[in-house]
């Protein structure tokens, strides 16, 4: 069954088709959510909200866009909402604005660079981690991130730069090993 047929079945009220659509995209949405939030519970909440929005909005889905891209946009929006809902976003923002130079120390028990890197990404403030994930991992341009996060593209570039700098500081002891991980 192709995508258009699947959508038609969903819109006719077919719950099996709805589950099929959910299964097709839940891995990606949840992975994006957990990467952006670095929090299992929050990621689940955001994933659920994203799919509720997807099914509510499916009647209005314009077929000129790819379903995957449309779901991705909804997922990012739902993830940001979940993050804001926990008041973490604003709290982190205030924290960063007051002490922008402060570098969070990631757990230093992991001996391997990759583990340290992942711990350092976890430790990034939400606003930096979101941009880093969307750009470095998801492959979005700064213009796309600007639209998704509703920030100027210059802010996206600045946040990516900050994120990289913080990761660099957190992993500076490995810097000489960059090419041999």
């Amino acid at each position, binding site marked *: 069954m192709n995508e258009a047929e699947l959508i038609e079945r969903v819109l006719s009220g077919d*719950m099996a088709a709805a589950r099929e659509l959910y299964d097709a995209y839940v891995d990606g949405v949840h992975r994006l959510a957990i990467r952006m939030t670095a929090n299992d519970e929050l990621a689940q909440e955001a994933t659920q909200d994203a799919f509720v929005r997807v099914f509510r909005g499916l009647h209005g889905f314009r077929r000129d866009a790819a379903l*995957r891209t449309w779901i991705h946009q909804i997922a990012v929006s739902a993830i940001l909402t979940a993050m804001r809902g926990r008041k973490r976003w604003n709290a982190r923002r205030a924290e960063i604005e007051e002490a922008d130079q402060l570098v969070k120390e990631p757990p230093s028990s992991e001996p391997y660079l990759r583990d340290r890197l992942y711990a350092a990404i976890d430790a990034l403030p939400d606003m930096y981690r979101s941009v880093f994930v969307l750009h*470095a991992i998801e492959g979005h*341009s700064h213009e796309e991130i600007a639209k998704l996060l509703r920030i100027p593209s210059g802010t996206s570039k600045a946040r990516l730069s900050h994120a990289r700098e913080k990761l660099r500081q957190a992993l500076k002891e490995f810097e000489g090993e960059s090419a041999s991980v």
Partner: protein
Amino acid sequence: MSDTGSHPERSEGSAGTPFDALLDREGKGYRSGVQPPSDPMWSRIERDVARAIAPREGRITRNWPWVVAAAGIAAALVLGVAIGRRSTRTDMPASPAAPSVAAASRTETPVDSSRHAQMRAATLNHLVQAEVFLTEVRADLKTGRRDPTRNQRSRHLLARTRLLMANDAGGAPAVARLLQDLELVLAEIAALPDSAGGRRSTIDARLLDERLRAGAVLPRIRTILPSPPAVGGS
């Protein structure tokens, strides 16, 4: 969701140093092996999904406000055409906008023109009601107040929105897009649970508030409303 984005070129802002290249390369494995708890998450949203995808035909037969709305629009159109015919004859020479729109309206017959004007008037009237309704809903969400007629009113407005869209009442692309966004917002309001309270309700309220803010529906309505030439200028 690395396979869901548009995957643009990676030139801008991408790895400039070996360390940046390392970040980009190794970052791709960040939390990549996490398995989502698909079944528990699905069970938590299953009811909402079922409600969201319920066939629209069923809703029409269940919800009599659709019928009332259709009758109301039809009556407004009939009345509007009659008024429009009179206003076309009496008002056009005095209209200050007439010279500027004369060229554009040369190909329209008087009947087309009056129908257009009346559709715009009906749209304007609808947007006024929608603005009032959305403002009330937004205030209710903030205060936690529950309007027992909220779902009924939203379905009523939703029906009218769809009828206007089906009749190309938007006219201008901006109005057409506004009606599409309004339709989505009203559909979400109509799908909100009747009973207040609970975590699900809180999430719904939050999502709706975000939808209103993200689509800037209210500001767009307010932008269109005080613009008389856009409504009755043709």
